[in-house]
């Protein structure tokens, strides 16, 4: 077979070296994008912290941040910066990163570009949990602060879809089709319940619950950041550790099995960790969607599908994205603050369309 053994020996080694160089360049480009996204977070945060309805000169803001590290916060300006702006910014970064990483993992294990915390019913579950806490909560358990009841309830209910999926997996194989259909069914069920209790709720309570469901960073505080940060620090390394398996699973269940992956177990593990991460975020922020769906896609367009790079990239990009939308939402109609959940969909949506049209065809 001349066609097979007939490689031109002259250019053989040169060609290999060329491919190696190309591959190195490709990897370099991915790392560059990750660093760029990280830098973007710092830049947006740096700008965002100087903006707000209470005017403080930029240089003074930075000096307040610097001094606040060493001494307690006292003046009005210091309180605005340290207790209002910084928690909001940090929550935004954490939430954006966490939701984007969870979205990346869910799309990967389900081999479905539509998967996100929204489509799997996690957000709807959290919304339902919060709604019953807000509308009936104070009546049911007097004495417990409503704020915590809402958070706890949202967390518990956002995990119900995971338990349902895990339960189903005991009887049937945990295929991606089963998981995504179960998730969508859960989303419809919870949305239906939300509408049902809204229908009978008083308008004040309904308004409050509705604001919760829209999602935003207005409830950000240092107390809320701690549990979010702890969950983030626990979940993200676990997910990163599975990135190689996730790559292999992208080639389909059979191939992944033949490459040594216990597909059902890996899928369930990643699913549970990603759901915990999502739940720990949205029980504080409400249902900020979209970033979890879109950040992974935007990053795939730019750096391709290798999850070892995609996970950090979409994390940083998602953080920057949510923070950017939050900053816009605080400024475009100031002093009115547009919730992050709304900004995300209204501005982020068209932006995503633009990217779809403009995408670099080679990698997506």
């Amino acid at each position, binding site marked *: *077979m001349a*066609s*097979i053994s007939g*490689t031109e020996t002259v250019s*053989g080694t040169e*060609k*290999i070296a060329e*491919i*190696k160089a*190309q*591959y190195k360049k*490709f990897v370099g480009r991915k790392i560059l994008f990750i660093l760029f996204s990280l830098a973007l977070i710092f830049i947006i945060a740096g700008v965002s912290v100087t903006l707000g309805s209470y005017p403080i000169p930029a240089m003074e803001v930075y000096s307040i941040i610097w001094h606040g590290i060493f001494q307690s916060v006292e003046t009005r300006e210091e309180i605005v910066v340290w207790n209002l702006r910084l928690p909001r910014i940090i929550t935004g970064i954490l939430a954006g990163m966490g939701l984007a990483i969870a979205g990346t993992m869910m*799309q*990967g294990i389900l*081999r*479905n*570009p539509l998967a996100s915390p929204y489509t799997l019913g996690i957000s709807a579950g959290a919304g339902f949990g919060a709604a019953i806490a807000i509308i009936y909560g104070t009546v049911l358990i007097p004495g417990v602060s409503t704020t915590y009841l809402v958070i706890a309830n949202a967390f518990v209910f956002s995990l119900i879809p995971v338990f349902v999926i895990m339960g189903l997996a005991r009887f049937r194989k945990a295929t991606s089709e089963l998981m995504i259909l179960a998730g969508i069914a859960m989303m419809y069920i919870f949305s239906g319940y939300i509408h049902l209790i809204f229908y009978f709720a008083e308008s004040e309570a309904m308004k409050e619950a509705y604001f919760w469901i829209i999602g935003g960073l207005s409830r950000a505080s240092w107390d809320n950041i701690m549990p979010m940060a702890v969950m983030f620090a626990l979940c993200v390394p676990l997910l990163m*550790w599975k990135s*190689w*398996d996730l*790559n*292999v699973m*992208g*080639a*389909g269940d*059979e*191939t992944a*099995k*033949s*490459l*040594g*992956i*216990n597909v059902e177990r890996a899928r369930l593990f990643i699913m549970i960790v990603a759901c915990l991460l999502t739940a720990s975020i949205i029980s504080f922020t409400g249902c900020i969607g979209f970033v979890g769906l879109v950040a992974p896609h935007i990053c*795939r367009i730019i750096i*391709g*599908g*290798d999850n*070892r790079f995609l996970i950090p990239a979409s994390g940083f990009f998602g953080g920057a994205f949510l923070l950017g939308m939050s900053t816009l939402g605080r400024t475009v109609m100031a002093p009115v603050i547009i919730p992050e959940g709304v900004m995300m969909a209204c501005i982020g949506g068209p932006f995503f369309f633009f990217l779809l049209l403009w995408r670099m065809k*080679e*990698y*997506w």
Partner: protein
Amino acid sequence: MVKLKIKDVEFGYSNMPVLQNVNIELAESEILGVVGPNGAGKSTLLRCIDRILIPQKGCIMLDGRDIREISRMELARKIGYVPQDGSQIFPATVFDTVLMGRRPHLGWRSSERDTEKVLETLKMLNIEDLAMRDINELSGGQQQKVFIARALTQEPELLLLDEPTSNLDIRHQLEVMEIVKRVVRERGISAIMAIHDLNLASRYADRIIMMNGGRVYAEGEPSSVLNAENIRHVYGVEAKLSSHDGRPYIVPLRAYVSANR
């Protein structure tokens, strides 16, 4: 020496038996062709050998060890599987796809050595020019070669190929078969391929298993298995056979119209 021994294997989906009483032996450095009509159980057999499916009865021994006692990772270092359809939803370069074949051999990250192995295989299959292309943009024949490359970088002792030549033009068919033959000879590994094309099976397989309705209908050298009588019985096709380079060459003539098939 016996590389693989399949003993009394039975597999079925709920009440539908797919494999019944299958007994096969495979020697080292042997290419076994598995032929048979659609639904005869060829793909299922390959999946059972790679433990993607687990037989309800019987056992499969690799080097004398029951594959159920071998961890999935270890099995992945021993058996490479090329599925019929390796569709990918998200983008992946050819290089990264082939690099996945190193997964059973490495931990969290890949080393320079893994890169070398990938490049070596790409070069061997003459697809190094495709290295940085997206797998989804390639033709069926090119994709098939990439999947074979991935299985080869696994450095398996046994290669399973499920219809490696379906959807390929005749040039790619020959190229793929030559690659399989060469790898088996050079590395001394064994290969089992499910294949529809009887003439390719005849030409490249050392031994042939003809399956029908989940059972092994005939087994032996191509010249003994591929005869007009077997083809008529298993496929319901009248065929004319001649000899080419000492191997049977099949010209299918017409399908029998018969009620009891």
